[in-house]
């Protein structure tokens, strides 16, 4: 399925739709402050969907590696984590720029900002750990162990903590719903752009990862052959 092109075309179409309709679609005017900056929703929030999905795929391949060692599973695990980090950084940056206008500062120590930063630190540590090991097999095996451990330590807290803390994001203490976004709150006109945007960006992240995986596989072949 990965080699087929229909999902790449779909990703392209969805992102074209997002980048045009994202700026054109009618948005509700809630107050004088938010106004058109709410369109950041189509770009900022999908980054987190992408990051979270890629990290989940990465940890699945880490488990596969431990059950049945092979360089393929390791390459997949590493590359999904790598693209996940890129999307996480983009999510932080898009959020910070928006926050500068809306909250008055790039960084305000919001629980979700902290959670996202912790997630990125954990995956940076994953790459430092791999870098400090010389043997390829050891690198893959110990990296996989840390990947799984960190994932299970991180996810419960990152999904739970923001819900019980006061937050500037939607879904914090006192308000119901998902920590990232409250789907029921979203205006219908925005909904028809938001979900295509999520799917489009996520597909793009997978596309980037498959390209990296092919590159790595070729490099390995070239080095070993």
């Amino acid at each position, binding site marked *: 399925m990965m080699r087929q092109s229909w999902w790449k075309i779909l990703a392209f179409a969805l992102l074209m739709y997002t980048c045009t309709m994202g700026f054109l679609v009618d948005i509700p005017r809630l107050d004088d402050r938010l106004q058109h900056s709410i369109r950041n929703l189509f770009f900022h929030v999908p980054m987190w969907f992408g990051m979270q999905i890629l990290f989940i795929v990465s940890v699945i391949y880490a488990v596969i590696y431990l059950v049945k060692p092979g360089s393929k599973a390791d390459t997949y695990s590493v590359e999904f984590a790598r693209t996940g980090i890129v999307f996480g950084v983009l999510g932080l940056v898009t959020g910070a720029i928006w926050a500068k206008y809306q909250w008055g500062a790039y960084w305000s120590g919001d629980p979700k900002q902290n959670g996202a930063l912790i997630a990125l630190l954990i995956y940076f540590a994953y790459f430092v750990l791999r870098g400090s090991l010389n043997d390829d097999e050891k690198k893959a095996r110990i990296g996989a162990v840390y990947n799984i451990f960190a994932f299970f330590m991180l996810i419960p807290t990152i999904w739970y*903590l923001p819900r019980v803390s006061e937050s500037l994001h939607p879904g914090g203490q006192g308000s119901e719903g998902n920590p990232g976004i409250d789907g029921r709150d979203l205006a219908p006109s925005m909904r028809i752009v938001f979900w295509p945007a999520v799917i489009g960006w996520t597909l793009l992240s997978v596309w980037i990862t498959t390209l990296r995986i092919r590159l790595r596989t070729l490099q390995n072949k070239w080095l070993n052959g």
Partner: protein
Amino acid sequence: MKTKATCSARSINLHLKPHRISNTKQIIALIRKDILLEIRQQYSLYGVILYVASTIYIVYASMNQPENEVWNGLFWIVQLFVCVNAVAKAFLQESRGRMLYFYSIAGARDFVISKLIFNLLLMLVMSLLSLFIFTILLGNPFAHLGKFIGIATLGGISLSLVFTFLAAIAAKAQQQAALMAIMGFPIIIPQLLLLMKISVVAFSSVVQEGLGEMVLLLVALDIMVVALAIILFPFLWKD
């Protein structure tokens, strides 16, 4: 000849399997060995105790007797550093040859369980000790000291479990001490935040919303760390 040798080795291995049923015995023996080592090589135990005392003294020298919130934050940060130092040596002190020996007589799972329990006991002692020194030097701000002792115990357990497993990972790599911090600090932040939140109840008679839920989450995380350690540790010692 060679095949015969491996065959017999395998049969010995199989033969040993039934003995492994008495896992608890082996675990207790391994813990006893660790405790005996601590008692005989007193310098390392005293080293950690001195580390606790001097760290807290530096905190006292720079902050004197701070407000409750600062007290709470400082306490947990000191706990974090004490834990990294007390627990790090769990795996780093074992030489490669001795590791192989343990592996052949006890099995990876017994070994990691014994290390988890030993570090838990060590960290419990260190937590209570540092709480004692903290209250002497930085003052006793508590409305409910008993509650805080309970929270400190829970915190010590959580920290020791996480860092024991991370020490096992770091022992495989170069620059072990630095890696402990790089890997451990991001992972432990959520738990430290939870502990600091829970601790508020010990300082005054406020009602902390969702307190039971947070304690449960911490306990659940501890159980998960133990489960993950037992599942993942054999992969670390394969070589």
